[in-house]
């Protein structure tokens, strides 16, 4: 396996940098199913005060698909190592890491392995374990996860057409500009299947206690993927963490209620 020294990390993860060059760095990590486009309604709000870093996990968006190594990405540690390599490549310190969905746990793993790079963690809709266990309710059974893989399969053919350049230019939503073309929320189907398995079978409950960075948990209303009880579990396990209940419903407040997300993060960093 190539070491980080031999890999162009910024190219591999399609890292995009904007904002204030000497501002406090804030890194946004997208979850399963999409790409850094997930943050397009949130990230710009931080460009005035922060160095804003966006990236795609390998297999998503504009990442380098050739870098997909099944051994490396067979656990969330591989994704956490990628995050650390990005922070190293940009030499970021006191970083605010904002992770949505599975990337919340990716951030927990990265921040517990090298806390000195991190200044704060923002976990949006985190779940350390999706599958129910005795004494723990994650919300899903193994059969449900198999059902997700079937749903992915059923969309397999549809996905290949989505990978083709999408016809854009929705006149009602002018801010969705021309740059959203081939890489728009695109994911490689075979990689998505593996990523789904890795995401939804991981168990990171024990890793929460080791978090030492100041942590904000953003809990959505009616989020079936990360229910309230799970958010409260994360809050209990991470020492000193703060939990904020959002009015936003569903699992993607970064799209459905970006202003509320921006306000909660800004308030936490103040």
């Amino acid at each position, binding site marked *: 396996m190539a070491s980080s020294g031999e890999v162009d990390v910024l190219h591999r993860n399609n890292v995009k940098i904007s904002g204030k060059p000497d501002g406090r760095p804030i890194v946004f990590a997208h979850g399963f199913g*999409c790409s850094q486009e997930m943050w*397009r309604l949130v990230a710009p709000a931080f460009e005035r005060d922060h160095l804003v870093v966006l990236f795609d996990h390998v297999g998503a968006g504009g990442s380098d698909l050739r870098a997909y190594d099944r051994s490396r990405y067979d656990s969330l540690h591989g994704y956490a190592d990628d995050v650390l390599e990005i922070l190293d490549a940009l030499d970021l310190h006191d970083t605010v890491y904002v992770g949505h969905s599975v990337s919340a746990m990716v951030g927990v793993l990265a921040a517990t392995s090298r806390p000195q790079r991190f200044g704060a963690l923002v976990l949006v809709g985190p779940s350390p374990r999706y599958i129910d266990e005795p004494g723990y309710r994650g919300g899903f059974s193994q059969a449900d996860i198999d059902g997700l893989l*079937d749903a992915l399969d059923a*969309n397999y053919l549809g996905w290949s057409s989505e990978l083709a350049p999408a016809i854009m230019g929705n006149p009602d939503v002018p801010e969705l500009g021309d740059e959203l073309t081939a890489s728009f929320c695109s994911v490689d189907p075979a990689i998505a299947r593996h990523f789904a398995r890795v995401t939804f079978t991981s168990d990171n409950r024990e890793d929460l206690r080791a978090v030492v960075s100041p942590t904000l948990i953003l809990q959505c209303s009616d989020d079936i993927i990360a229910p309230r009880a799970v958010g409260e579990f994360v809050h209990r396990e991470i020492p000193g963490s703060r939990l904020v209940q959002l009015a936003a419903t569903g699992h993607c407040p970064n799209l459905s209620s970006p202003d509320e997300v921006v306000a909660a993060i800004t308030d936490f960093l103040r």
Partner: protein
Amino acid sequence: MTDAAGRRAHGEIGPPAVESSFEDLYEHAPCGHLSTASDGTILRVNSTFLEWTGYSVDQLVGSSFADLLTPGGRIFAETRYLPVLRLEGSVKEVALPVRRADGTTLPTLVNSVVVEAADGGPGLIRSAIFDATSRQDYELDLLNARRRAETSEERVRVLQRASAAFLASASEAAFAEALAGSMQEAFAATAAAVYLADESGRLELVAGAHPIGVADDVEPDDGPGAEALRSGRVLVWSRSGIRDGMPTAAQAMKEARFETLTATPLPSAGTASGVVLSAFGRERTFDAEAIALHEAIARQASEALARIRLQSRLERMALYDQLTGLANRQLLKTRLGEVLAAARRESGPTALVVLDLDGFKAVNDRMGHMAGDAVLREIADRLRSTIRPGDVAGRFGGDEFMIICENTTAASAEAVADRLRGAINLPLTGVLDDFSISASIGVAVHDGAGSAPAAADLFAAADAAMFRSKHAGKDVTTVVVL
């Protein structure tokens, strides 16, 4: 022109009936129609959809569209369908499994479009839903058939690649690297390590690192590798499974960030025996097919290891004396040629020591060949421990030995020869009590001036010097300088 068309052209009959009511068209369209608020709350649904799913309009309006989906479908909707819809404004032909009122699943294909509200407030999502039962069954059959074919192809490919890598391995180290690489490739293992048993059965690390940080390079008796080797089966350790029984190992796995370990024994064929450990960063389960693939790789590996070990044994047999383990005549000849060639280039001195045991025939005659062999092995051990690093000791006849001393002057060679005589003179206690033995030694030295002699000439001179020592009364060293 047909009669009917002709009549229509002349206005004799009316146009074909058109939909008289858009309400009716909406309700009974040949697809489901569903409108939701931007948060997914169902606002309106048509009769076709109600018919297909068995719900009443009151059951659906006000509830969440996501609640209609199977749990797996809901995850997909939340992580994929909704984000794309929100970002792109529309999605087409997304496959979503809908749960009917009777608990069965209706596979559907959904087209959705976001309709912005005129005042810029939250809009609507309009969806057209198509029954995809037959199409989806067909596609899933195809997909599953393809996946089965791919799995079996993948299996063959993994085995072929492993086999090719094993075949290309000339040494145990290269073989072990190939085996570790094959396991990583086959099972997406984060790390792999290969232990091979030495003659005493100890498992020594040859490739990779022990996944749970055992300090030395020997697999401990209570390690997963040793246990797999004892049972002869593929062993799967999960951290959660061993936490109570083996807390130390479980803690080591935690620190190494591994959730699952497998240990696969190489089936013992002759002396070939070892084990390969694979480590995984998340909890993994292996079905019977995956376990069988572990075993198939191990079988191939075992055969390859047996071949490599046989080759190295044959190489040893061709170059080393079987009784004493010293260089044989063939190797001595090669080494002497090399040493003289180097001496020629560098004009350095070379010494050749020829050594013949005194009274060995008597040992053989009186005590038998077994005792004679024991004495030869003992003498060989003494030669090995007496010569200097860099000297090459060999046996070229029954009780005739030779030492090649590179870059060695006459004085140094004589000192070596005298040390050898001293070592040989020591009592043979424990080997052949009450016996002792001595050696007649001849040393031929070329001092480096002029051209170095041919190997045969140097040997002839040393051999002649040895005979002079014999005639001088044995237990003597004779040195000649060429």
